[in-house]
């Protein structure tokens, strides 16, 4: 247990101390949101209509941007070599790292969403549903992203490859996440969407650490 806490704490500490950490992804999220609004034009109804999907897509991209450092930095300085020799199982350690990633990228995005909702003229009840769906869905982004990060560790220009590998896998998360917001906006029951989103997150929670650990092992060998 202590090894997990140790890995988790270290990754949080590093994210905070190195180059702005959590604020970088959040900064991208807000700037890209501004650009998207400028691109769409200032018509309030159009913006409100586009907002649920746009915020989700931007969150997904912001998450993607920080993924390639999840294991790459540890690979480059050799500290990734230590993980398999800990007496805690590798998938559990990987999960601790993914959780730290979510806390430092996913959570700030959720906290920044009200600002984007303001810019996009999103009504309050839609904003609440957006926050709920992001809270349920963004862990899956970090989890699935972890697989991609592990697969591309040590590869030159791995970040670009990572997006090619991972983005298609994000499709269900995007669909269920946006679906919940749009359902509630049109007066329908958002629960089925949220349930499916939660199921996708849970499936990722079980499978992603295993797949990531397998990918890491083969790159370390």
């Amino acid at each position, binding site marked *: 247990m202590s090894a997990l806490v140790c890995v988790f704490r270290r990754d949080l500490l590093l994210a905070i101390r190195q180059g702005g950490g959590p604020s970088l992804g959040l900064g991208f999220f807000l700037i890209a949101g501004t650009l998207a609004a400028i691109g769409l034009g200032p018509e309030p109804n159009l913006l409100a209509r586009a907002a649920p999907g746009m915020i989700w897509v931007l969150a997904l991209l912001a998450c993607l941007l920080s993924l390639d450092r999840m294991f790459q930095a540890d690979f480059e300085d050799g500290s990734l070599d230590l993980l398999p020799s800990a007496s805690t199982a590798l998938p559990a350690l990987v999960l601790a790292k993914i959780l730290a990633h979510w806390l430092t990228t996913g959570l700030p995005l959720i906290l920044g969403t009200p600002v984007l909702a303001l810019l996009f003229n999103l009504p309050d009840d839609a904003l609440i549903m957006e926050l709920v769906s992001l809270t349920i869905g963004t862990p899956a982004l970090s989890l699935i992203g972890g697989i991609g990060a592990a697969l591309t560790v040590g590869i030159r220009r791995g970040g670009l490859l990572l997006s*090619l590998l991972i983005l*298609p896998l994000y499709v269900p998360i995007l*669909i269920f996440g946006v679906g919940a917001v749009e*359902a509630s906006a049109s007066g329908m029951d958002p629960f089925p969407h949220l349930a499916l989103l939660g199921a996708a997150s849970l499936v990722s929670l079980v499978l992603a650490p295993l*797949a990531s650990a397998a990918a890491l092992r*083969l*790159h370390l060998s």
Partner: protein
Amino acid sequence: MFQLANPRRFYDLAQRLEPWVWAIAAILLSYGLYLGLIVSPPDYQQGETVRIMFVHVPAAWIAMMAYSGMAVASISSLIWRHVVADLFAKASAPVGAGFTFLALVTGSLWGRPMWGTYWVWDARLTSVLILFFLYLGYMALWSAIEDQTKAARAAAVLCLVGAINLPIIKFSVDWWNTLHQPASVARLGGPSIHPAILTPLLVMGIAYMVLYLAMVLQRTRIEILEHRLALALAADASRADRDTSTLSHRSAHSPEGAL
């Protein structure tokens, strides 16, 4: 099955089977196209356009099937470390991507007269498009990793993750589609297939399957050759490294005679 795990056995078998498989594919394909393009009647609603279905629908089947084949090969690669399974999966990917691309192109050609535009976010087309991206990622990962043993394992992990995701993606896209698509719009190869077009569709499906098999057999054989070549070159390089002293000594005495 396990005999095929030996690259040499697989190579010999593939070489013997290949001409036959190609021939059967050619015959079935001609027959299927004849049935689909000439014999079968035009649709009362879609007219002659319906004939694109005979090329499109089976291509979408094979696109899915090829990915499943890769997933099965990936499992056996991860469990038993079979070189042939790795190379089979590697060889399948461009073939599967090719059929996926064919399904995309024919789908959008069908859409032009039916929907009045080349692209509509139809459930099947959307799933096929995402499947195409999965193929691209798989092939990109193979080519990004130098060490072929590692590349094979990484690609196998990715393929399995994709295979687990594929039904979820398909389900989510269908779900998304029913929410957004008005029911009146014609669906690509919709749920009710008229019996008159079922026979040509099945013949084309089998023809594609045999064609896929022929292409994959040949490509796997080539991959086995390349794999052997790479091993031989690596062995040669380390031998040369060991013999450097002897070689330089010899060339000093007879610059031209060394070869």
